[in-house]
């Protein structure tokens, strides 16, 4: 650490806990960045002349006479076009062996966009995956997480989505990423020849967990630079937000705050909202779209982390293994894109909303029929047909290995309708039925 003239230096720590230290100091600003024995730390509490710092790497081995340097600033990121194609740690320091970034210093976690200056999102994001494009269509400026158990291939699906989507920049915020997954992303981006439009901020499982707390703000500060200053379409990938929330819980616990549900801090909703609400469509054409991962434990979405996330994001994409076809699908029941209304039937074919709903309804009937069958009851002819339909529907549309365009998805659905059902069973508005029905 190079000290600068205006920086304040202290050498007398009065209290130490696992993640925090306190000392007497004056003229210190709330949320200011400091270094304790060379480790990054941030001011989280000031009581008269006692300042409490959260030390990201933890306090192990810190002595009471360690050097504490206050920088006079909250954490910052230097932004410029040089960010493109680079890999950084949680502090925004290069980890790819490349040179330091030159650019404008920006405070991370900056102010919110004035709601009246936002534009309504209206640009469709194509992923080729029917479980997304057909049933849960994504739009630029949206924020949406994958909900998945840890054994689901969410990082792969997210990478596919990122590479297929038409965006100017992809910014990856990796939190508690395993080294393997980190290398997976790196190779994938490399091989796709997409490196020039990638920026990565990575905290791996080998790094201290509290450092993760900086990653989303770093990624989003970079995103705002490209979206606002360069009018670019930016896609931000945040994986895994559950590990981010766990780090929040550690800190609030160390601060002796009263936990609310599932040992999470009472402010979890606001903390997560501050990140996700950075997703925005600017009138000038730039946009920030956030696709995140929230890992679940045993599919439980009532746990405080997915629950609060669901209340904040504009839908969720629920991945699960469909044992009938032995493939991972985007579950049509638990998944939702709340912005799809803005594009389906408008930017896509007119029949899109009705076809989507009818297919999901028939799929639900199949689920009921399966329950009936499992309980040992006889199935009606209709039940049998719904089950057959559901297998085809899963295989040809819900599975995540699909890569086709939206018209093809709609045509496939109409084919399946005609194959298994009558017009009355499909029950779609008459004018649309007249135009697209493929059966008798």
């Amino acid at each position: 650490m190079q000290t600068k003239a205006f920086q304040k230096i202290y050498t007398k720590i009065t209290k130490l806990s696992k993640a925090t230290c306190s000392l007497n100091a004056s003229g210190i600003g709330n949320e200011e960045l400091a270094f304790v024995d060379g480790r990054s730390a941030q001011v989280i509490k000031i009581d008269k002349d006692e300042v409490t710092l959260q030390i990201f790497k933890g306090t192990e081995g810190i002595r009471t006479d360690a050097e504490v340097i206050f920088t006079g600033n909250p954490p910052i990121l230097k932004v410029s076009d040089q960010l493109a194609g680079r890999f950084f740690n949680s502090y925004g320091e290069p980890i790819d062996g490349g040179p330091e970034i030159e650019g404008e210093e920006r405070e991370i976690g900056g102010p919110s966009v004035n709601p009246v200056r936002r534009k309504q999102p209206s640009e469709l994001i194509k992923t080729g995956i029917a479980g997304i494009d057909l049933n849960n269509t994504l739009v630029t400026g949206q924020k949406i997480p994958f909900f998945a158990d840890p054994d689901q291939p969410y990082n792969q699906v997210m990478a596919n989505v990122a590479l297929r989507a038409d965006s100017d920049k992809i910014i990856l915020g990796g939190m508690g990423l395993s080294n393997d997954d980190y290398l997976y992303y790196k190779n994938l981006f490399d091989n796709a020849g997409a490196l020039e439009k990638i920026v990565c901020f990575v905290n791996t499982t080998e790094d201290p967990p509290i450092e993760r707390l900086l990653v989303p703000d770093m990624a989003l500060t970079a995103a705002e630079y490209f979206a606002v200053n360069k009018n670019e379409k930016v896609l931000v990938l945040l994986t895994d937000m559950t590990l981010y929330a766990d780090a929040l819980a550690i800190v609030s616990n160390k601060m002796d705050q009263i936990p609310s549900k599932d040992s999470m801090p009472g402010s979890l909703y606001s903390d997560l909202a501050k990140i996700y609400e950075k997703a925005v469509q600017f009138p000038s054409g730039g946009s920030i779209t956030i696709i995140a991962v929230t890992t679940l434990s045993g599919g439980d979405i009532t746990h405080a982390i997915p629950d609060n996330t669901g209340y904040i994001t504009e839908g969720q994409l629920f991945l699960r293994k469909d044992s009938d076809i032995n493939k991972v699908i985007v579950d049509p029941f638990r998944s939702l894109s709340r912005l799809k209304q803005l594009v389906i039937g408008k930017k896509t074919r007119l029949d899109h909303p009705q076809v989507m709903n009818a297919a999901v309804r028939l799929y639900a009937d199949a689920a009921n029929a399966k329950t009936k069958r499992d309980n040992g009851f006889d199935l009606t002819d209709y039940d049998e047909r719904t089950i057959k339909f559901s297998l085809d529907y899963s295989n040809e549309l819900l599975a995540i290995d699909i890569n086709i365009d939206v018209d093809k998805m709609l045509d496939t659905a109409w084919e399946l309708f005609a194959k298994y059902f009558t017009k009355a069973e499909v029950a779609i508005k008459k004018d649309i039925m007249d135009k697209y029905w493929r059966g008798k």
Partner: protein
Amino acid sequence: MVKGKVVGIISNLITIEVDGPVSQNEICFIEHNKEKLMAEVIKISGNLAFAQVFESSRGLKIGLEVEFSGHMLEVDLGPGLLSKNLDGLQNDLDKKEGVFLKRGEYTHALDLDKKFDFISSAKKGDEVHSGDWLGYVTENWIEHKIMVPFKLEGRWKVKEIVKNGNYKITDKIAVLVNDNGDEETITMIQKWPIKVAVKAYKEKPRPFKIMETGVRIIDTFNPMAEGGTGFIPGPFGCGKTVLQHAISKNAEADLIIFAACGERANEVVEIFKEFPELIDPRTGRKLIERTTIICNTSNMPVAAREASVYTAMTIAEYYRAMGLRVLMLADSTSRWAQALREMSNRMEELPGPDAFPMDLPAIISNFYSRAGMVYLNNGKIGSITFIGTVSPAGGNLKEPVTESTKKAARCFYALSQQRSDSKRYPAVDPIDSYSKYLEYPEVQEYLTKNVGDNWVDNVLNAKNWLLRGKEAFDQINILGDDGVPVDYHITYWKSETIDFVLMQQDAFDKIDSITPFKRQKYMLDLILMICETNFNFESFEKVPPYFKRIINILKQMNYSEFKQDNFYNFENELKEVIKERSVQ
């Protein structure tokens, strides 16, 4: 002026050492660089005041100067509030500069230079009390009454009132004098502290009228009273916001005050975009002309989120005092409760259930009690109908905010995860939900007179079919399709018909999304006729396809213009289908 110095900072809770008397809920300003950051005193202990700052506290330091304002958090009330986009502290968002919100930038909610044509109704020598009308100006299309300020107590006389004419809202309109000889100059603007209920009315009767919303599951099954209260709890993604937006588009109200409290910015943008284009079916005017939006989205400061619902309620009370029917919507009241929880935890208060403050039930019921229908001093009626959403953690209704709200609100629109998963929108649970107003004799009388003679009986009858359908469905599930008489299947499918055609409603279809009472009555009569019809089926397997045909035709009717050719064509088709299997 009382001053102080910052001595402690934890997140947005600031401890201030003060040099004089301060009051609970007093507003103060923390001076930092060139910014003045607004904060509210929430606790006092000795010479220490604890304040929640309505902004990010980043960079604040010990020793900063604090100025106390001498008043609580107040809003400005006057002509020009309609169609505004305000934040939780009543700043006009459109007046703020730049794309990003700047800390410490406060903008006036009213346009102080704007002129209105004032027409007086009071004259010199009149005796007046707070809330009495002195005259009016025209705002959009409403007669915006200029009133004796709410805060004037006792009896006053009009000493002077200006001639009809064009005035700025800051110009003198009248001078009032009381028995002590105190004089008060009246302009078109008055101030009121948001956490105090406006009581400038004669009495608050029980609500006795129904407010049409155009949403069938509300109007037909669980009607909302004008001046009534209700709430919509539900897990995320089950349709709380869509339902509130649907209500705000069609409700029979003069004004809509919409508090977007700690929810998504894009949802507010949707209103910004749609309301200037959509037409109010009753007045033929743009929806935005009757709407004021108080917008404190989830990424805006938490303390201001708490203020936002009070700001909205105060504006609603102001317009109610003009004899208007105001509908106030808040999405979501849970975010407001969470804001209270965050502060309470920071102050290390003894927590109640789920770490919410102990007095949460009292705070919620106080708030709901500010709604209601009132007789003003001049005998005219004004009302605030209030519907809030609740976002229960984990979707579990056994949590403090839902339970406290249930005690305070008279209508309960419970959204069910299961219905939403099967896309049965609006996902209002047909069995658990209720409207207490349906039990009020005066409401029943109103419905009989205004909707139809047997209306209430018919509604109860339909509800009974739903219950019977559910029982039949349970039996079928236990005993199997062929383990029960065919009648069970018929009963179940009759209830499904009510569900699909009356309860479910497509909020995104131009026609289906709005159903006036007349049309609701027509459809209810039609469907009850089907329910009362005896059908003949050789086997249970024939039941579902037959009823699906019936449901399909009825849904096509829902999508067609009421009583136009298409509508009648489908109805005739329906009659043919019914003939196929009906028996005398």
